[in-house]
């Protein structure tokens, strides 16, 4: 933890063009946005088995020096231990609020994305199944896909989302976006003038929802209803992903996130 951030830090995720799914792309973009906001260089590498390489089974994960850390929460703490933090300027109550809103995004948006990908039959058949196992030969691609679906459905059942219909899930997404929109108001970022990890997380999810084409547009329509959220996404994209070097990996990631998930 005492070493400075090396130049060759790497972020691993699944294959951008063919394999990665909505929820994983959102998480990965959130981490990339966070690292950009901290001004820490990172290179994105795509591997088909990224999920299995990760210590916790979730993507994305970063390989820094000789340590491997996955998921936004632990990565934020790891980066803080190295001396970079975006939320130091917040007081205790604001920190509590920030954590609460991050949980809201995880609880509602991420779960809704997972539900849409794995529990909505149309989406599963047309998008998820073909994409998830695409780097693998038959029959492995089917087996992996069904296994993951079974796992996600078990989790949905345990938290009580299995009984929800798609309309109810979309309503929850709407409620979550409304809460985020009201919290953001007319400010530039969620906490005044400086972006924090909450901004990175919200950006990751909303940008991915807005730019991914699914079987229907209902999910992105819910987000588009809130103009301050779309303006927020555009602002962060311009500031952190296009303002830098044209060849930087982050720009390429954002651009291909835009294109590759369009069918």
């Amino acid at each position, binding site marked *: 933890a005492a070493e400075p951030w090396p130049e060759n830090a790497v972020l691993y995720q699944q294959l951008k063009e063919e394999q990665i799914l909505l929820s994983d792309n959102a998480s990965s973009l959130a981490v990339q946005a966070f690292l950009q906001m901290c001004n820490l260089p990172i290179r994105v590498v795509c591997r088909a088995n990224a999920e299995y390489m990760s210590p916790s089974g979730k993507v994305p994960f970063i390989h820094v020096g000789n340590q491997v850390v996955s998921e936004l929460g632990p990565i934020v703490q790891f980066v803080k231990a190295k001396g970079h933090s975006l939320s130091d300027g917040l007081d205790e109550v604001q920190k509590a609020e920030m954590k*609460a*809103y991050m949980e809201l995004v995880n609880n509602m948006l991420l779960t809704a994305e997972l539900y849409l990908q794995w529990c909505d039959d149309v989406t599963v058949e047309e998008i998820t199944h073909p994409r998830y196992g695409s780097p693998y030969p038959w029959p492995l691609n089917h087996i992996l896909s069904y296994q993951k679906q079974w796992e996600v459905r078990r989790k949905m059942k345990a938290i009580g989302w299995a009984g929800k219909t798609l309309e109810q899930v979309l309503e929850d997404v709407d409620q979550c976006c409304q809460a985020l929109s009201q919290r953001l108001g007319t400010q530039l970022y969620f906490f005044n003038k400086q972006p924090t990890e909450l901004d990175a997380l919200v950006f990751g999810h909303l940008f991915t929802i807005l730019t991914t084409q699914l079987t229907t547009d209902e999910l992105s329509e819910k987000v588009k209803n809130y103009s301050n959220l779309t303006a927020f996404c555009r602002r962060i994209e311009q500031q952190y992903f296009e303002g830098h070097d044209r060849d930087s990996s982050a720009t390429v990631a954002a651009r291909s996130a835009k294109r590759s998930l369009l069918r």
Partner: protein
Amino acid sequence: MAAPMELSCWGGDWGLPSLHPESLTVMAYAKFSGAPLTVNTINKSWRAPKGDVPVLISADIVISQPAKILNFLRKQKYNADYELSAKQGADTLAYIALLEEKLLPALLHTFWVEAENYRSVTKPWFASRIPFPLSLYLPGKMSREALNRILLTRGGPPPYSLTEVEAQIYRDAKECLNLLSKRLGTSQFFFGDTPTTLDAFVFGFLAPIYKVCFPRVQLQEHLKQLPNLCHFCDDILTCYFRLTVADSALIISLQMDDSLRKSPQHPPRKLTTLKLAAGGEESSPWNRLSP
């Protein structure tokens, strides 16, 4: 007038109206918003809990999850949140998500998974309130569901270590309690002087941890180090839940209070009026009037 509403939920002990966090949340919200709810605690009769508890029954409508029940109450104009701004409403959602993600796993663990607690307190208590053949099966099922939920939402891929998961969820829960305490600060409720939905949820989650006597109590000990949260629970218990009065005269005086409210929205009950009513209980001459 709205159809009479009945709430079916788990009963209480150790000074609490209910041991079950979700039932407690709904009961607290009903008290805050002034909704007239008849509470039926589940006992040994054959109307055993078949689905989720708590369940609200009003005329022909049956509603089961706390969020949906609260929505229904709001539609019936029992709204504890109407004085909140939009941002405060957004904060409510965020904090409820925080409670569910960070505090609920540890709460479930303390009640249902921790072996000593489960064997000596939870299982006998719940089994004594469920009719015979089900009492052998249902507590075990609830325990398995709780463990399942914790592992699926918090455990990593196998091989994972259960003790590590447990350590992590208790760390998260303690952090959550600290955050709540900082957010509450010195005020009486989370948003000013009147209790709202968020207060109902926080009370529902905290009160069981605070009051139930378990052999293994690390979460309770941590909670007791946060005095503002303890006062929060105690205040709500004394002001909103001790009013289980059999005194008909006192009930009449409370009903007169209700009918004087002209607005269609029933405003949330303010603490002061209840204190006066409760204070009058001991010393007033009403006590000597027999029905």
